[in-house]
């Protein structure tokens, strides 16, 4: 093909044709999608199968045991599904935070000069990474159930904390007015820390020496809220669970399904993130670190200004994949009884058999979550990229 023919000034007739072909392709794709939709609708109608989202506003009657907002079986299908989405988001966001923490630690351990530490990290990564997540989940769930006793023989490791095979029961904090003062003090401390960072940055640019920002930051964040905490009369109460009949009631409950799901999901994803961290660190030329040392750059600065900008460039895109995988993998919750979006949606399908609508919603929600993650991570990636000169 002669590419010069498409170049500007080289025959507008050819350009027009290209445009027409592209418009044609878009048209065909649109037409195919439309006719598929029409065809599905027609077939559903011909087979007398109900379709549409009308059922979402009907009372569902389905039982859900673990929700972040109050729920009753007399609520609608739509609300039940929404609670499933909330649970999925909850698991996904908590999972991303925890797996990043563990992943970074294990990744650093992998490149540690300590023989034992790096071997332990390798064993961890290789085992978790090479066993299917579903098996890991069945395993963690079985371990959680098998290792914990019946509610009547609960373990009581701390005052107000109970462990049994129905869940981990923690004291539930009930905030009073004082709590909000402490929270406000905490926010204020954060703002002050931010200002200190700015001042320090300015100072370093002028004089070459910054402030001891980390120490100031810790001081502010811990001291300020604690001061308010001790000054205000009542900050919060704790509601403690107690055994009534079959189960403990009250308190903050982490159910075995949730605990097992989080454990499995986090350990699995952290293994992948650890590898990203390791490859990022190892991608930085050793000579640069040695050069920084020779120039007398402090090791924290070497990390922040030399290693991280180059390591993150390698790690972030791969980690974006792992985050989106984590979100998708959270759908395995259904296997161990945690009511995520797929579990609740599955129940709704079982109840009214409108599978197409629910599957469409599942896809839409996962797509939305993952597109958001991708765009945030891409933004982060562009921020930390080394500006090549």
């Amino acid at each position, binding site marked *: 093909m002669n590419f010069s023919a498409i170049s500007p000034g080289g025959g507008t007739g050819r350009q027009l044709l290209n445009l027409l072909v592209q418009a044609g392709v878009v048209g065909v794709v649109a037409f195919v999608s439309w006719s598929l939709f029409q*065809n599905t609708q027609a077939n559903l109608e011909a087979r*007398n199968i109900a379709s549409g989202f009308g059922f979402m506003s009907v009372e569902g009657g*389905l039982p859900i045991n673990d929700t972040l907002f109050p729920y009753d079986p*007399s609520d609608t299908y739509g609300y039940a599904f929404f609670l499933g989405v909330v649970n999925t988001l909850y698991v996904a966001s908590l999972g991303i935070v925890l797996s990043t923490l563990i992943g970074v630690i294990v990744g650093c351990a992998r490149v540690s000069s300590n023989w034992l530490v790096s071997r332990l990290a390798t064993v961890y990564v290789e085992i978790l990474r090479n066993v299917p997540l579903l098996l890991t989940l069945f395993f963690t769930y079985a371990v959680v159930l098998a290792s914990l006793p019946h509610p009547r023989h609960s373990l009581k490791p701390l005052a107000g904390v109970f462990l049994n095979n129905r869940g981990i029961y923690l004291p539930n904090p009930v905030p009073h007015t004082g709590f909000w003062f402490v929270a406000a003090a905490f926010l204020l401390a954060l703002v002050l820390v931010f200002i200190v960072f700015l001042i320090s940055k300015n100072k370093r640019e002028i004089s070459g020496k910054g402030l001891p920002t980390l120490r100031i930051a810790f001081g502010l964040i811990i001291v300020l809220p604690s001061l308010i905490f001790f000054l205000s009369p009542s900050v919060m109460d704790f509601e403690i669970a107690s055994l009534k009949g079959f189960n403990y009631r009250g308190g903050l409950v982490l159910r075995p399904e949730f605990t097992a799901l989080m454990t499995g999901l986090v350990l699995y994803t952290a293994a992948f993130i650890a590898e990203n961290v390791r490859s990022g660190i190892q991608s930085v030329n050793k000579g640069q670190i040695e050069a920084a040392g020779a120039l007398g750059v402090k090791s924290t600065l070497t990390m922040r200004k030399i290693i991280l900008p180059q390591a993150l460039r390698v790690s972030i895109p791969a980690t974006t994949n792992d985050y989106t995988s984590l979100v998708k993998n959270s759908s395995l919750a259904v296997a161990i*009884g945690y009511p995520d979006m797929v579990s609740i949606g*599955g*129940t709704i399908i*079982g109840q009214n058999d409108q599978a197409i609508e629910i599957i469409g919603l599942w896809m839409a929600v996962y797509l939305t979550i993952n597109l958001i993650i991708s765009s945030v991570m891409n933004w982060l990636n562009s921020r930390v990229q080394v500006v090549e000169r």
Partner: protein
Amino acid sequence: MIKKSLAIAVLITMPLMATSAFTGTLDNVKSKDVLTLGVSEGVTGFSAPDDKGVWTGFDVDMGKAVAAAVLSDANKIKYVPLASKQKIVAVSSGQVDITSRTTTWTMKRDTKQGVDFTVPVFYDGQGFMTTKASGLSSAKQLDGASVCVTSGTTSELNVADFARANGIKLETVVFEGKKEAFHAYTSGRCDAFTTDMSQIASLRTTTKNPDDHLILPEIFSKEPLSPLVKHGDNQWKDLVTWVIYGLIEAEEKGITQANVLEVKASSQDPTVQRMLGVSGDVGSFINLDNDWLVRAIQAVGNYGEIYARNFGPETKLNIPRGLNNLWTNGGLVYAMPIR
């Protein structure tokens, strides 16, 4: 080049545009010479592969009777194990010819989901199993208890309805698979396990010590289980319906797998003569020959024999016939007259 790709695009889209043409299931089954039967993923007594991989069970026998009537061979069946969620869609989409898989006949399924039910073959009801150690004697004492249940079934709704109707709170833990749900119960995650009574009986036999578990007396739902077919194919629905009625009528008339040929040769009862094709032409009403029921009974026996083989006292399940007795014995099993 462009023309060619356009032509290909049109060729690909054309078949998608036509709404699928409707051919009768009976013709389909005959031309493929095999009956595609949707069964469970393994529920002892209803449909489960034995140690040689051969499917057996009550629901399987219903399918075998139809295969024998239509194809003259009870083994010309392709078994498709279906998860609970798929059992309706599989038959409404034509993936299987019949779903014979412990499926409850409900109004919504019958009217809004593109399927038709045939005949209730098993009158079931939902109940609770719990441990003897719990000291319970009634399901109403379950307030605050954890209950394990399988998703994608009517059981979830029933258990929530039961709790609401009785003003008690239950913590329901919902699992995708029955095995996982039951395992969670046996591991102590739940105080009780709930599903249809027949399946509870079946699962109880699989525990380490069945005597440690007891079935609470309350039956809190009506679960008439029935094979189902695609909505709108009346010819096929009539056929499946009347083969099953034939099996029931055969029990009432004392026609068994062993004596069917003898009865056919000697019976003076005009009803029996019509059923077995000695007189009349009832076979043609469902587009079959006159020996349809003889073949079905030869293959699997009458309704009572099928029940005894899969649930009777000699089996591990040992489910009393109760509602599933013939109407003449105080049950609900009743065939419409074959004439």
